[in-house]
């Protein structure tokens, strides 16, 4: 990144810092988390190729949004990992951290596969219309309009199906019972 760009980015960041903080506070519901994420955003944006100056505001917002979802994803992963072993902790008490590290790749692969099976079965259990709409839109990548056409329903009908799907999937996939 050229020095001019870095300077431009700094200006951009200064200009929008307050807006971004307000957004992140609303997005996370926690002022401390918002500050943390803003810090991380700034570090990333300064890396070479981190952020273009053109349409920089939207870019910074999108980056902030992605960092929030990264955190959610990590929280979800941790929750699943904890839950997975918690009921057998006594059996595995002999495991050292080292032993777990050796198998970390394998564990990640297994977690990934388990998660796939979990999501697939959650999708399989959706009500018929919601399942088809979800499958076409989220897995096959069709737009709402294309899904509407294939199912012979209105676009708002597709949106309703998707909302029903989200409601079910939330319970099946995301209920970690914590904050």
């Amino acid at each position, binding site marked *: 990144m050229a020095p001019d760009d870095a300077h431009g980015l700094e200006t951009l960041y200064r200009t929008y810092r307050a*807006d971004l903080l307000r*957004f992140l506070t*609303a*997005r*996370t*519901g926690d002022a401390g988390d918002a500050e943390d994420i803003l810090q991380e955003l700034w570090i990333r944006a300064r890396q070479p190729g981190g952020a273009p100056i053109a*349409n920089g505001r*939207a870019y910074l917002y*999108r980056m902030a*949004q992605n960092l*929030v*979802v990264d955190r*959610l*994803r990590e929280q*979800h992963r941790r929750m699943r990992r904890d839950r*997975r072993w918690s009921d*057998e902790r006594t*059996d*595995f008490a*002999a*495991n050292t951290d080292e*032993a*777990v590290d*050796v*198998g970390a*790749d*394998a*564990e990640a*692969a*297994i977690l*990934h*596969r*388990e*998660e*796939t*099976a979990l*999501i*697939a*079965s959650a*999708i*399989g259990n959706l009500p018929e219309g919601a*399942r*088809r709409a979800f*499958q076409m839109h*989220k*897995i*096959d990548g069709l737009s*709402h309009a294309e899904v509407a056409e294939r199912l012979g329903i209105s676009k708002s009908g597709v*949106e*309703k199906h*998707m*909302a029903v799907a*989200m*409601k079910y*999937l*939330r319970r099946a*996939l*995301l*209920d970690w019972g*914590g904050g």
Partner: protein
Amino acid sequence: MTARSDMDERLLEEAMAWHVALESDDADWDGYTLWLEADPRHREAFDVVALTDRLVGEHRDDLRLLTAAPPPQVRRGGRRQMLFGGVAAALALAIGIPALMPKGDTVYATGAGETRRIALGNGAAIDLAPASRLVVKEGDENDLELAGGEAYFDVRHDPARALTIHAQGYAVSDIGTRFAMNLAGPALLVSVAEGHVAVGSAGNSPANLAAGQKLVARGDEGTMRISRIAANDVGSWRQGRLVYDDAPLSVVAADIARYSGKAVVLDPAIRARRFSGVLSVGDGSKLLADLAAVMALRYDVQGDRIRVSAGASR
């Protein structure tokens, strides 16, 4: 979080509308912020939409496999069906979701405990093992992808063309031979019963395999290891036998998961162990019991998953 379970569909619809709207370059981030500030439930609804989107996105390729329906004209071969028939298929509940692949790709998929024979017009005959998926790319029968599971290839020699099968970043090419491929976790296994195949990956010169050789490629480690295999043991699952020679337990577990339709989870403490021996497939339900007996392992079935750990000391 009882309040959360009452999340209504209207909020989710709003959240999804924002999720779509924010993809645009001139998205109204201020309006979105105001929406978030208006009600803390808006943030929670958006979390659901964004995290679901992320989860599905990360698994999209695998989900295509699991949610792909076998084409309606699928032939359920009598004897083979008997061989593996009646296996409770945890993953099969997802089957029936229509497969909509990018235009031109033809997908052959099997459920847990189900096998399938595919005859391609180019003279290749392929046996697809349970819970496996083979893609013919854009109608080109010489360009295939093994997207999951295991398959046995019997390819007629034809000097005019070479068949290539992609799997996990590797390309397996041959001109006329019999060989098997198995995707097991991070590992790709290629074993040759007859003829020669070449196994290449980006940036590496291809490894040549001859009849009686087996290659284990680990994409995550960037390693390839070649060992011997009896020609009879190549694709032996077709005769209802799973043959292992010093195989990582994770590979054995991946196979058992495909035949039994249950997720097999290994305790980290035993993942480094290896297995040599023969397991009889039967209806898929006894595989783990047999393995556990031979290796002094303990396993607990919990619904759709089986946890495997070292033998009980009690």
